[in-house]
């Protein structure tokens, strides 16, 4: 009995390991080929690179305007995540503590709106913001991320604000805090774990988003990493070497973050899904 158990455990480990190799293999292949010349890639894509030549990288670096795109992505992601967390927490807090008809119906409308797919909004969005001359601007994009991201964030915060004891807030107010001070000094810090969850979900989404930035950001100087990767691919689709390097460069930042925050990222996704 114990023997079959050990045996089945062993089989499971082997099967899962093979699967894991399959899952990670595309990334390894990408990394290997990013050091090779185009002819070496097309003649043997599985071969090891002869040297760790960085020529592809410097080419990709220049053509993608890597630093520029990286900073665009960074600014857009960080600002969007910050304002989504802050404003959504304030709104959810207000809805929970002022349980009026207004709060209930607005909350319901926000939850219901989550079913609307982006594709049903993108055409009028481009038309409205285009006629207001607000396209091709990072800050418009950040504003839109707040609009698209607030529903889910308010929804998740709403569940957790209920768990914050109202006595805590009353005590702070007796001690002389205004409602705003109470929120920033007591409630928002208590909600930190939820804020972490929401931030993780939003970073994964906004950092990698393609369709919305491709509609809003027009000039090359405003491009985010996914945008510049794709336009780089459009110009260099046959030159595999620099393309592979470009893809590695695009993946690199989030992989580095994952290396350090892997546990929290997986936890965040776990918590975000339990509704």
């Amino acid at each position, binding site marked *: 009995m114990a023997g079959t158990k050990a045996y089945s455990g062993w089989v*499971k*480990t082997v*099967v*899962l390991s093979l699967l*894991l190799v399959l*899952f*990670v293999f*595309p*990334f390894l*292949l*990408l990394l290997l080929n990013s050091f090779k010349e185009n002819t070496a*890639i097309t003649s043997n*894509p*599985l071969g090891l690179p002869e040297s760790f030549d960085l020529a592809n990288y410097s080419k990709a670096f220049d053509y993608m305007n890597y630093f520029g795109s990286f900073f665009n992505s960074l600014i857009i992601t960080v600002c969007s995540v910050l304002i989504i967390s802050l*404003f959504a927490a*304030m*709104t959810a807090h*207000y809805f929970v503590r*002022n349980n009026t008809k207004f709060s209930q119906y607005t909350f319901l*409308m*926000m939850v219901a*709106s989550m079913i*609307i*797919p982006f*594709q*049903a*909004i993108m*055409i*009028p*969005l481009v*038309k409205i913001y285009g006629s207001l001359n607000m396209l091709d601007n990072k800050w418009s994009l950040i504003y*839109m991320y*707040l*609009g698209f991201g*607030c529903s889910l964030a*308010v929804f998740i915060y709403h569940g957790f604000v209920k768990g914050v004891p109202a006595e805590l807030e009353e005590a702070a107010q007796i001690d002389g805090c205004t409602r*705003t001070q109470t929120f920033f000094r007591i409630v928002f810090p208590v909600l930190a774990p939820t804020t972490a969850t929401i931030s993780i979900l939003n970073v*994964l989404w906004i950092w*990698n*988003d*393609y*369709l919305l930035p491709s*509609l809003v950001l027009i000039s090359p100087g405003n491009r985010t990493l996914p945008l510049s*990767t*794709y336009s780089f*691919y459009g110009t260099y689709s046959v030159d*595999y070497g620099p393309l592979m390097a470009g893809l590695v460069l*695009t*993946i690199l930042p*989030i992989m580095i973050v994952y290396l350090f925050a*892997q*546990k929290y*990222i*997986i936890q965040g*996704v*776990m*918590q975000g*899904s*339990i*509704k």
Partner: protein
Amino acid sequence: MNTEKGRWSRLRGGLLFTGPTLFCFLTVMIVPFFYGLYLTFTNWDGISTTQSLVGFDNYLGVFKDAVFWKSFGLTLKYVLFTVILVNAVAFLLAFGLTRGMKGQNIFRAGFFVPNLVGGIVLGLIWQFIFSQVLVYIGTKTGIPFLEASWLSEPGKAFWSLVLVTVWQYAGYMMVIYIAGLMSVPNDILEAASIDGANGWTKLGRITLPLMVPSFVVCIFLTLQRGFMVYDVNLSLTKGGPFKSTEMVSMHVYGKAFLSRDYGLGQAEALVLFLLVTVITLLQVYFSKKLEVEA
């Protein structure tokens, strides 16, 4: 006096706390949504400043647009297979990774990796694998199945897209299933063991019924993402060859922004929205019926 002051400060508090979010929510989601409804009754070409009302012409156009229905049917087929396969693979991975096996955290972290990377990049990586690596293996080993790029044959290109989607999302859904599996109370499972239930009985009678909420969430997410697929579709196949993998989202994009037929494109987007809404509501309704309390 006092109450008036109180009302004013309450109103100010409400504006401060909900104002920015609600204003943004209204101007980014709600106004465009209803304006989009209006657009479906116009013939805006994307350039002229004016447009005229054309009644239900665009909706008639939707029914006449054979390419739209073809891509719609294709999307349904894609959604059907990806929902089943992603969830099956994800559940099996989660099931294998919750019994305290050695290094299970490394496995979990590894399977999740594709979800860190955007669809555009994943599509480009697999484009390289399908058009170079597999063809190389095919010609070296003489396996005819691999000799020509899968992306150049309509039937195989569709399955390539399904394969990449399963690879992309299985790890994400796995994480949700792991959370679900871990919430199944151990004492119930132990009690069942004492009563003589074997592994399969426990899985079928206890674990799966208690996991219904996780299945609801995962199927909801895979349905939504499946219907909306765009990034991977664009960078893996560009809808080709011969539009054989053009999913509905890409078709709507093309109608509006490439053919400059915004009214028709928006009408098609709304038809898509209605169908997705009906399907997801039905799914949630029927799965909620299956839910049990521990």
